[in-house]
Every structure is written in structure tokens, then in C-alpha cells.
């Protein structure tokens, strides 16, 4: 049980780390770099401005700056929360061992 909880805590901390990383990147990304990413995704689909997931998400962030900031802050918040939860679980598991 202790090992499982330690694994779970570590996993959550990892997920939190990636959330913080992507959130920070999305918050700091320059509009022109997001534009380049959008260009790449449309080009991969033969120029189609499609409704596929990646295309839709990038379009939303590129077309609406507020939405990009909101998504970035949500990712950051979720990342911090996951990291703290993971750390707490891992600590509790470590103490009980």
C-alpha cells in the first residue's frame, strides 16, 4: 500500500510538473510562434483549417488571446494543485512507512 501511494504521489507530482511547464510556456509564448505552430498544423492537413482537436485548440489560442491566457493559468493552477497533492500523498506514505 505504501509503495502504491508513493508511486501515485510521484505520478501526480510528475503530472503537476508538466502542467506547470506547459502552462508557463503557453503563458509566455509569443503570438508569432503560436502562428508558426498553427501554420504547421494546417499545412500537415493539406491547408485545411480543419475542426480536428489540435487545429481547433491552436486556433482558439491564436485567435483569442484572452482564451490563451485563461488556458495557461488553468494549466498552471492545475499543475500546482496536482504537484501539491502528489507531494502530500507521497509524504504521508513516507511517514506511515
Amino acid at each position: 500500500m505504501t509503495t502504491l501511494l508513493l508511486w501515485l504521489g510521484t505520478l501526480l507530482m510528475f503530472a503537476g510538473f508538466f502542467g506547470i511547464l506547459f502552462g508557463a510556456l503557453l503563458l509566455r509564448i509569443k503570438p508569432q510562434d503560436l502562428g508558426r505552430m498553427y501554420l504547421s498544423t494546417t499545412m500537415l492537413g493539406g491547408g485545411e483549417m480543419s475542426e480536428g482537436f489540435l487545429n481547433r485548440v491552436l486556433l482558439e489560442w491564436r485567435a483569442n488571446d484572452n482564451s490563451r491566457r485563461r488556458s495557461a493559468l488553468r494549466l498552471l493552477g492545475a499543475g500546482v494543485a496536482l504537484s501539491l497533492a502528489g507531494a502530500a500523498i507521497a509524504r504521508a506514505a513516507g511517514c506511515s512507512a
Partner: protein
Amino acid sequence: MVFTPEELRRECRPLSELAVEALDAGRLDELRHILGRMSAGHFELFWGYLHWVVRLAGKVLRDFGEPFFEETSSKIAASLMSPYARWILEGRDKDAVSAIVLLWVSQKGRVRALEETANEVGFLLHPCGSGGRLLLEAWHENAPTTYPRTRGGSPLFCRLCEHLRHALNQAVGSPFWSVEPVAGRSGFCRWRFRKRDARGRPWYAAEELDRLTSPRCRLALRLLDQGNPRIHDLLRDQHHEWRPLHDFLCLWVTSLLSLIYPAKGSAYLSDLVWDTYVTLFESAYVLHALLDDRTVFRNLVRNWHYHQARFSVQEEEGRFVFTLDPCGSGGRLCRGEMGPPGSFRYGQGLLREITEPSDLTFGRAPFPVYCTHCAATNRDQLLGKPWPFLVDGDALLRPDSACRQVLYKKTAARRAPPELLRQVGLDAAMPLRKEYLP
């Protein structure tokens, strides 16, 4: 030889013909694959024209300032919108609206019909496939010199679009077409067309609107998914579907070159073509270096079909010779086949020929101004680039003659025919630069 005569005949067929064949034989998986290729069949050409238009506008704006750019763009817009204005004045408002919407449906953006009211019909571009695409892809931020904005901050293509709308409204004498960018959504636009005399009658049935705003390949796939295989009409000659947009962009370019030549001279015209087109053609050389002969050939065949050409091909030792009767842009322009029938012809309206011979006219005159880009790319290729697209400048001497274009195989000896060198003022071809070596 790369192909047997039978293989060559098969390779030259348009994708639409292959799709019909797969449908008739019940090979639906293959048909879906071909439909995917068909839906993107014109994209390289559209992308090329879109960027050429904006690069031309950008260079004119940079070199001569905003008043000249504005005057030139408004003259071009008035000329290009004149057929649509004529339709509206004849009472064919719906035909004009459908034709304008169709120009945007072919751009691979997304167009949705808004609810039609007694007074207007609306469309949402979410996002727009031309101006919106350029804006979202951040060309003005990544290459601000080539893709500048106006003093007022408008992206260039959007400004050109404003000129089109203004020209149409001015010609019909009322605010017929209005455009409103969607607040907080870059690249999204809402269009409204005011019904001048509909007496509350709806213009479009729901099905008609769906058909108008959906490209044929998308409709065909939808019907296939519903188990309906009666899609022959959607497949047949699908490469002609985007012809109105192809012609519109080609005419914009030709009109600009025709206005610049008398105003700024042939030296500047040459500079303009080299700066805006020849550099854009670089991707063709990179592709040529990366791909094998068969793939390069197939790509070119597809592009000629979507470029609205009628052509035949002969394979010779070291090269493929395309006889274009006519070429889909320059050749059709010379024959007055571009745009709505009878609307655009050299010597009428804005379209002009060049009157003095130079490297840019294959050394002859009078010379159709649009074909100058072929002379420029010929010279560029002979100066150390691969030879995927050498044009015989003596072929199109009369409007009814066929043009001749040659694709050299990658292993062919680099021996340029003397007449091609003479046409662009060179004595010898330079060896292939190392960055293009296969």
C-alpha cells in the same frame, strides 16, 4: 524511360477521373483516399497565389507609399468586381452573392451560413481562408518587411478585401456587401449581403446553403458516410471547382503588373517579379531535390490539372515535355478565357502587354505581362537551380498557340537548349548549386 506509354497515359489523368473509376468499381476505401488528395489538390496553387498577391501589394506599399498602393488596389478592385456588379444591376443579386461566397469556400477556411432574414443574407468566416489565414499564421509578425501592414494597422490582404467590397458597393450604388470582423476572434469575419428587392422572399433553401458553403469533396465524403454512392456529379471535373478563385487571383496579379509597367517601367517590373515571385518558387526547387522523378512528375501533373490547363505530355530522354493548350493562367488570359466569359482580355480594361523586348519577355514584344514570371523563373533556373519548370518562350507566339513546358529528370545532363538561353539573355547555364544536389 520512367514510364511506359500506357503508364504515362494513366499518370496524366486528373484525380477526379481516378475517383470516378474507383467509385464505379466499388473500391470505396481507395475513393476516400483519393477524395482526401482531391480536397487539397489546389492548395499549393492557392497558397502560391495568395502569397504572391500579398507580396506584390507589400512591395508596392513599401516602395511607393500608401496613396499609390490605395489608388492601385482600388482600380484593380473596381475592374475585378465589375462582372459581379453587372449581375447585381441586372437583378441577379443571388448569383453575385453565390459567386462571391464561392470564392471564399474554395480557400480551405470555414464558411458557415448565418440565418437569412427578409432583408439580408449572412455568412460567417470562422476563420477566413485567405486574410484570416495570413493573420493567424502571423506572417506580418514573422516577416514584417515582406508582409507589411497599412498605416492604419490593417493586414494587407484584409485591406485588399475592403477595396473589393467598396468597389462593389460603389458600382451598385448602395451598401450591398458589408463585412464586420468578429470582436476578440482574429481572422474571423461576418459578412452580410443586403437584399435590395426580395420582398421578404428567402433566397436560399437550407440544402442550397449547405451545398454553397461546403466544398464538393466534403459533400461527397458525407454522402458516402450516409451510404449514398450517387456522387458522380460531385467528383467529375472537381479540379474546376476552384476555377473562379484561381482566375480571380490570377487576374489580380495581372492587373497589378499591368498598372505597374506603364507607371514605373520595365526595370521596376522585373524587380517586382523577381522579389515577389521568383523567391516564392524556391519551394519547387527544394521539392525537386528531395523527391524522385515519378513523384515530381505526378505533382506537376496534378498541379497542371488544378491550374486549369489542358495538356498532353511526351516523355523524352532526360525530360518530360508538357504541351499546354492552353496553359491555365497565361494561355487562358491570352485567349480571353479568364474569369466570367468575355470579361477580361489583354488590351481591354486594365490588362496590358509589354511593348519592349527584354530578358523578362523572352526577348520579344509585344508580350503578355502575366507571362513575365515564366521568363524570370527560366533565368533563375538556368543560373544554378534545378530545372523542374523551363518554359519555351517562343511557343506562345499567338493566343491560339500552345505553350511548352519542360520538366528535366534529375539525372539528365545539364545541357540547356541554346534557344532557351538566348530567350533570357544568357550564354551558358550554370552548374547545379550544391544545396540542390539530389
